[in-house]
C-alpha cells in the first residue's frame, strides 16, 4: 500500500471522531487512563513489597499472594497501558494474547513439573558419591 493511500486510510480509520479532536477532551481522557493505570500499578507493587515482609499474611501463603498481585498488575498494564479490551475491535489482539499465555503456561508449568519429577526420581547426591568410590 502506498504511503499516500495509507495516510488517507489513516485519516478515515485511525483519525475517527475522538482521535481527530484529541486536542481538547481526547487528551484529557487518554491521560486519565494512564494515571489510573499508574496509580493501580504502583499500589499493587507497594502491596507486593509490603506483604513480603509485614507478616500480615500467613507465611506459607505469601508466594501465592505475590503471584496473585503480579498477575493483577500485569492485567492493569494490559488494560490501562496497552489498552487491551475484550471488545469486538480487539478480538485478534486478545486471542493472540490468550495463545501466548497458553504457551507460557505450558513452558513454565511443564518444565517445573518434569524437572521436579526428575529430581524426585534421582539418587541423592550422597549416594552417587558413595557409588563412585
Amino acid at each position, binding site marked *: *500500500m502506498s*504511503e499516500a493511500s*495509507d*495516510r488517507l*486510510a*489513516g485519516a*478515515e*480509520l*485511525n483519525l*475517527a*471522531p*475522538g*482521535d481527530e479532536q*484529541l*486536542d481538547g477532551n*481526547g*487528551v484529557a481522557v*487518554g*491521560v486519565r*487512563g*494512564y*494515571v489510573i*493505570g*499508574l496509580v493501580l*500499578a*504502583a499500589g499493587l*507493587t507497594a502491596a*507486593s*513489597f509490603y506483604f*513480603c515482609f509485614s507478616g500480615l499474611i500467613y*507465611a506459607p501463603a505469601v*508466594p501465592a499472594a*505475590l503471584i496473585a498481585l*503480579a498477575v493483577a*498488575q*500485569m492485567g492493569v*498494564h*494490559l488494560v490501562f*497501558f*496497552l*489498552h*487491551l479490551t475484550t*471488545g*469486538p*475491535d*480487539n478480538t*485478534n*489482539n486478545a486471542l*493472540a*494474547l490468550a*495463545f*501466548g499465555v497458553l*504457551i*507460557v503456561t505450558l*513452558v*513454565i508449568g*511443564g*518444565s*517445573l513439573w518434569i*524437572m521436579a519429577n526428575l529430581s524426585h526420581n534421582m539418587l541423592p547426591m550422597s549416594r552417587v558419591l558413595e557409588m563412585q568410590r
Partner: protein
Amino acid sequence: MSAYAIDSDRIGEEALESPSAARSAGGPASKRVYVGYGFWIFILSDMVMFSAFFAAYAVLAEARAGGPGGRQLFDLTNVAWETGCLLVSSFACGMASLAAASRNALWFQVAMAVTFVLGAAFLGLELSEFAGLTAQGDGPQRSAFLSAFFTLVGCHGLHITAGLLWLLTMMAQVVAKGFRADILRRILCFTLFWHALDIIWVAIFTVVYLMEKTP
C-alpha cells in the same frame, strides 16, 4: 456490515472512534492496524522466549553449589527503585504516545526524554547490582542459580538497552521527519515494546527478588 467488518483494532491505542465509522465494510485494515498487530505477535513470542528463561530460573533456583542464595545477595531497596523507575518510565512513554497522537512535537520530546532518563536510571541500577555481585565473586559462573539469574535479568536488561537506543532513534526521526504515518507506526511499536518490558519486569521482581525473600 459483514461479520469481519469490526474485527480488528490496533493494540496500544484506545478505540476512540465509533465501531461503525471504524472499519469500512469489506475494506482491508489500515497499515497501522496490521503493523501494530504484527508487532504484538513479536512481543508475545518474545514473552514465550522469556518464559523459557523463567522456567530455567525456577528449576535452578535451588542449585546453588554451596554458594549464596538470593536471600543473602539481593538488595530489595535497589529493586524497589528499579521498579519505580521502570513504572514511571512506562507512564511517560504513554504520555509520549498521546503527544504523538495529538501531533505535539514538544510534549512528545519532553515525554520521551523523561522515558529515556528513567529507563537509563533503571539500567544503571541494574548494572551496579551486577557489578557488585561479580566483584564479590558471585558472578554467573558461581552456581547454576546465578547463571540462571544473570541470564534472565540480563536478557531483560539487554531489551531495555535496545529499547533506549530505539527511543533515541524515534526522538531523532520525529525531529528530522515529523509525525509522518510511517514514523507514527514506529512510535506505536516502540510504545508496545516499552510497556511489554515493564510487564516482564513485574514477573521478574516478583519471581526472582520477592520470592527469594519470603519468610
